[in-house]
């Protein structure tokens, strides 16, 4: 048990008396009350738990708290103030979500991809997006939404 401090959505947060082995996911959901990041598989296969650490997408279900000290974490709640990040707007415009459970993961993965590669190729988009499952099958709509966001 130890104390860990990191930056969460632009604010410094401290977790006291925390098990360092605990994945970031449970700290976010249970200790910090941010439930937008979801639990899907616990083995980094489905990607619904994706958040940004230092701007890169990571699977928070296997990312131990011990590795987060001093780092910058962004969750779906911190992506924009008013649900108006370009990816969020494209998702609403394209009526992407069905049940919505995986969509935080889809949106965070897309946001990281397009920030790092605004003109990502189809192959690069596929490589990034294949990391997040959608059981409802919103892939065709995700594809259309991303196509509108990619800088040509």
């Amino acid at each position, binding site marked *: *048990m130890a104390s860990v401090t990191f930056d969460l959505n632009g604010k410094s947060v401290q977790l006291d008396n925390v*098990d360092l082995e*605990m*994945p970031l996911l*449970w700290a976010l*959901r*249970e200790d910090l009350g*941010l*439930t*937008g*990041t*979801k*639990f*899907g*598989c*616990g*083995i980094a*296969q*489905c990607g*619904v738990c994706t958040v940004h650490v230092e701007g890169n997408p990571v699977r928070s279900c296997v990312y131990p708290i011990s590795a987060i000290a001093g780092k910058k974490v962004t*969750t*779906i*709640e911190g*992506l*924009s103030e008013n*649900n108006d990040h370009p990816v*969020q707007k494209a*998702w*609403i415009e394209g*009526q*992407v*979500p*069905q*049940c*919505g*459970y*995986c*969509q*935080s993961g889809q*949106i965070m993965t897309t946001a990281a991809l397009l920030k790092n590669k605004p003109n990502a190729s189809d192959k690069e988009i*596929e*490589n990034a*997006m*294949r990391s*997040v*499952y*959608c*059981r*409802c*099958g*919103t*892939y*065709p*709509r*995700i*594809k259309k939404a991303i196509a509108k966001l990619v800088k040509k």
Partner: protein
Amino acid sequence: MQLSAVSGSFLAIGCIPTSDGKEVVRNLSNNSDYTLNQFIKIGTDGLVTLFTHRPEMGQGTFQSMPMILAEELEVDIDKVKIEQSPANRELFGSQMVVGSRSVQSEYHTLRKMGAAAREILIVAAAKQWNISKKECFAENTMVKQYNSDKKIGYGALVKAASKLTAPENPTLKNPQDFKVIGKPIYRQDIPLKTNGEAIFGLDMKVEGMFHASVERSPVFLGKIISFNKEEVLKVPGVKYVIKAKRHVWGNEREGIAVVADTYWAALKGRKALKVEWDNKGLDEVNSEGIFEKYRTNVTKAGDVLYQVGKVDELLEESENILEAVYEVPYQSHVPLEPMNAIVHVEENRVTYWGATQNPNGVRDQLSRQLDIASENVEVNYTFMGGGFGRRSMTDMVEEAADIAKKIKAPVKVVWTREDDQTQGPFRACQVNALRGVLGDEGDVTALEHKVIAQQITNQTGKNMKAGRQLMGGVNTDYKIPNFAIKGVLQKSHIPITYWRAVYHSTNPFAHESFIDELAYKAGKDPLEFRLGMMQHHSKFTTVLNLVAEKARWYDKPTTGTAKGVALAERSGGYFAMICEVKQEGDKIKPVKITTAIDLGICINPDTVKAQTEGAVVMGLTAMYNGLTIKKGAVVEQNFDTYPLLRYDECPEIETFIVKSTDDPAGAGETGLPTVAPAFTNAVFALTGKRIRKLPISKNDLVAG
């Protein structure tokens, strides 16, 4: 849900289910029950709230049901507030979301309620203006007078309208005049799902709750012999290590709940848990054995589930019989939100929070299990992170209640992915055996379809007679003079349940593959062959012709590509699908799936398209993947061995809707039944290789 109770402060229209199963529209504004029993609420400020009484799992009823009310009420759906109703069968009738039934079963009731409210408001305005109601009409949350500038907002009419009696038979709008129904309107729940705001069962938290993870026997009916309680209690944060039970289709299932301060601590405690199970010999069961038995049963006569003409005689007489046997595996539902439930048991009172397709089933379960009157059972249901049938069961709620009662505190039980994958109930595995006879003209003169499978509604007990449930999805609309569907019932301790499209997810693979086999044997184009047997059926003919046109069926295929066709009916909807496959390197992939559907009137055509896209993707996963049983337990415990279809594997999906004003059919499963046969029929067209067993093995898709 808290509503103001001041009489006359709003107009509330509801619908009371009567004892004979009918529903009567009522003005509930002055009824003491109105806060619980209403679908429409209009405040004096003009704010319209529409209530949606069926849970949302992605299928879109959250908005499509209120859209029906809004249509008749003449309000702008974008400006109304949509609220979820509480669980209460007495007030709302069925609230279960299964079988794509919500919209189709309540289309008329909802229209009637919307129309009744509109008429009351018109009467109130006419009285105020001292003119005939015939001179008035409603539009855009206002009552107006024809040929005049006179208008008054609904809010200003509420006081007067709340005292009027709702008409029993209000005039419904002509579908030609619809402004809301049939429009691809943005869904109100979608913005909540792009910023993490939507609340699922997993996100619920209640004061003073503990977290639990439960170790359950991987061999289904295993009984606990012993477990290392004391050691697990030493894990930091672990508070209780206790037995927990639930029932699945009458069979008691045991587990050990590790209850802790946090979910992580519960998981750690569970890792330290060692259990000795008495598996009663069920750890000998494996998939090979199950299928071997099913295949042997192909020779059994079976129970006749459907029959026209004289199939047996024709099969006996004919020499030219085509036979084929198809197989599909068990499947798990895999909603991405794992099973979960929060239950708090108090003195003569119980409260539930969670994601369920069956709010009243949860209420019944808790009432029965805890012997608490149902009015003291509070069911708080959330958005679901997928359901697909699994959440129509209440076993996860029973288990949570069992734990909550024992620890005398609220508890949140969250299943792991492995728990979801391995515990079932599953989609049934099956063997389907077909025999067909072709006449001299290449027409099908006789067809026998035998289904060898477990039946959801008859899983325990000694009754071995197959029921008609087993023939779900076997198309009886083809014009075949001698046609029989037979069932050979199988029983197993491995539990099954409703899975998206149910038997329509299995039987059409066999049926539509075999129709294809017959077409090739007859030397006919597979689509023409189907059209030939559907001349009498305008809906199937329409969707077949439409899909042929849209997917360019008759164009010469480019090198390395081929197309396959399949059709089916589900929940009153008719659809035909064409899958185009392409050989890339030595692999064959689906590249485009085109579906033409006739579902009657579509409340929100964009939602209908989304549902079809989703059903296609789920059908593709089920084609590539399945569960196997080894030593009595499920082998594929998580996504590393049971991968779902990924983004880059998803073909282009196009859906075309036939315009119709017929009553709506169910939209939630459209397209799923036809995916596998359309694909395997296309693979046959490309390679000449007939795939009769799912999941498709990698070798099936190597060209050449």
